[in-house]
């Protein structure tokens, strides 16, 4: 009879840690979002005409326009660093037939962010407001007429043009 003897020493048993065990399933997808903001400018005036009532110059040396201040709303989208300007210019002086009153007899005081006071001119555009960037802006222009005893009688009118510029 033959005998087979097996001898074992101390066994070392270890459990290997698999870093992959216990991780959750995860998957990602990436998309790209794009927005094109184009230049845009819009100007709104609360009225398209102003009227200055006839008044005694001693009692009303400055005559406010009837109906209250003109409300101006400007909305623009501009390139960064581009200033936005609102100007006004009279196409001519106040005229009644052959009689003339200078357009500079019309002045305004302004309220609202970026708005400034000024005097109307037929010779050059006058700054009404400036803004540094894109946005929606609103202000009020209270027009007054300089009432003088030297003005000849008549029914005077002029046209003034507001221009919103973003360059």
């Amino acid at each position, binding site marked *: 009879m033959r005998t087979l003897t097996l001898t*074992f*020493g*101390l*066994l*070392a*048993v*270890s*459990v*290997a840690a*698999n870093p*992959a*065990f*216990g*991780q*959750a*399933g*995860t*998957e*990602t*997808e*990436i*998309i*790209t*979002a*794009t*927005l*094109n*903001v*184009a*230049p*845009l400018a*819009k100007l709104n005036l609360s009225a398209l005409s102003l009227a200055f009532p006839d008044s005694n110059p001693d009692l009303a040396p400055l005559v406010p326009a009837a109906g209250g201040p003109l409300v101006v709303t400007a*909305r*623009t*989208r*501009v*390139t*960064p660093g581009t200033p936005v300007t609102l100007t006004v210019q009279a196409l001519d002086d106040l005229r009644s037939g052959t009689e003339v009153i200078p357009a500079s007899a019309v002045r305004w005081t302004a309220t609202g962010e970026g708005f400034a006071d000024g005097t109307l001119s037929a010779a050059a555009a006058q700054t009404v407001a400036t803004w540094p*960037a*894109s*946005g*929606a802006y609103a202000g009020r222009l209270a027009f007054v007429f300089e009432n003088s005893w030297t003005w000849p009688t008549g029914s005077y009118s002029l046209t003034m043009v507001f221009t919103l510029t973003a360059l």
Partner: protein
Amino acid sequence: MSSGTALRHGWCVRLTLPGLATWALLCGSAAAQRVNLQVRPNSITFPTADPDLAPVVQAQPLIIRYQVRNNDTGAWRLTVLAAGDLIAGASAIDIANVNWTASPTPPFQAGTLSRTVAQTVAAGFGNVPRPGAGTLTFQLSNLWTYAVGVYTQSIVFTLSAP
């Protein structure tokens, strides 16, 4: 769809005899979790529009297909995270101006994009053995204060279980 795989409840035992090289390595594992995710298209565009006429603009809808397997009763979650604000050179539009609507609800839900915290788009428990599908539409608040430019940003969707 691309897929991700994970092992769970795995184990290995190594048997070593003194003086001998390792001669046995026994391993086993439970069934692996699997998640699949597809978002199409992979680019969207918000249309340019007059803010007075369109105070909110929508991009084209995204179709999201997803699948979760071998998840037992575990939770699964689909999140979205923007890589930053909408950027055009030095100009930025806060990504929080972008929100979304989604369907079907549940498991999908509406939300607002963030560049710091992943937001939940959809969530559930267990498996989605057949690919589920949902629609997600991003909307942007169209403000006059945005500077002119072409803005872009990456948006990352992540499906995870558990």
